[in-house]
């Protein structure tokens, strides 16, 4: 079968790249034997292929290039965030919120804190609820104030465990010096309340001393 020159010239480059099957190489050879133009092309492409093989594959490295690159890599290493080990980092991401949620749930269920007191303190409207029941403001204040655990009924000991003092008070313990007077100042200002309540120290149940 006669081959067209167009096909032959496509096959010439493919032959040089080693892509042509043996049968096609033979076909191409037969065509080139008869076609002067394609033979010239074959010679030219072979020369081109050899010339490409002469081109240097590697460059001569300027000495400073290695130093500059190493410097940049060290900078990149310094800039990189310290990465936790893969497994630890992954478990920290997944595990920390899950652990926190589990701890909160366990505390609410088994920590002796009733569900209603598991809420943040500000969410419990102590004053409003007590006022609705007819208590005086001073009583309300006393109810809201934490009591020493030793003087509370056993059933309520765990419920009203006093927490640490606020940081502001912890930093200034002198604020505690006149605390009874300050509490009673509230009663002095409200005469009606004084008639129905007692000062600190007069009632053993409410004494802090």
């Amino acid at each position, binding site marked *: 079968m006669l081959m067209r020159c167009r096909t032959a010239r496509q096959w010439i*480059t*493919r032959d040089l790249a080693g892509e042509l099957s043996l049968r096609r190489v033979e076909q191409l050879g037969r065509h080139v034997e008869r076609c002067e133009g394609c033979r010239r092309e074959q010679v030219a*492409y072979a020369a081109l292929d050899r*010339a490409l*093989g002469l*081109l240097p594959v590697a*460059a001569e490295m300027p000495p400073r290039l290695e130093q500059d*690159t190493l410097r940049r890599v060290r900078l990149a290493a310094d800039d990189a965030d310290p990465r936790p080990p893969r497994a630890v980092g992954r478990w920290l991401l997944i595990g920390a919120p899950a652990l926190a949620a589990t701890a909160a749930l366990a505390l609410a269920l088994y920590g002796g804190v009733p569900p209603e007191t598991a809420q943040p303190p500000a969410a419990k409207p102590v004053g409003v609820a007590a006022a609705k029941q007819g208590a005086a403001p001073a009583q309300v204040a006393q109810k809201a104030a934490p009591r020493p655990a030793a003087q509370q009924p056993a059933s309520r000991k765990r419920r009203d465990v006093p927490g640490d003092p606020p940081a502001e008070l912890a930093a200034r313990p002198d604020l505690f010096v006149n605390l009874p007077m300050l509490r009673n100042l509230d009663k002095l200002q409200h005469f009606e309340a004084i008639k129905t309540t007692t000062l600190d120290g007069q009632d053993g149940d409410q004494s802090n001393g």
Partner: protein
Amino acid sequence: MTRIGPRGDPGGAPSPRVVAAMGAEADPDVRLMLQLQAGDEEAFTELFRRFGPRILQYVRRLVGTEARAEEITQDVFVQMYRVRDRYRPESRLSTWLFTIATNLCLNELRRPERQLRVDLWDTRSTEPGAPPPEPALPDPGAIDPERGAAGREMVRALEAAVAELPPKQRAALLLSRIDGMAYRDVAEALGTTEGAVKALLFRATHGLRDRLRDFL
């Protein structure tokens, strides 16, 4: 006792992928890369010495200017360091590195402010007032001293002709014909198919033939 293979196959027969990975780890380049992943800085230096000259030459021919070629070569290795954890031993390290280099070069060539004129091997006279030309390639005679002046001139013209090819054709030609990469690896480096690589090579070769008609 029955051994359990990597995918739970009884008999301990490793999967083909594991076999390939085990074989790849015997490759010294891959071993160096694994050492680098483990934090060995000496491995980086060794990799730079092994691949730096080839990468620099490739980048030179792609971007054309010597200073920019050196910067991009640095970028290639800094990038290699930054993304070292992404390398998997299943693929050849050289292919991975040339992929990074090709992407950086093609990005550079796409920059709008960049002139597409490649002047490293351009023997034509420069415009008046233009900056002095970049240093030329080492004399081809130094590579093959037996070649005469005609051969050196031919190689010089060939470098200039390669520099005038469109970037993707140039990249395919350099990777395949000069760096000797398989079509599959060239396709991976260029982010294309083997068929597209063959087409690029065909056009590149014919383009060179046309440009070098006086020499061939």
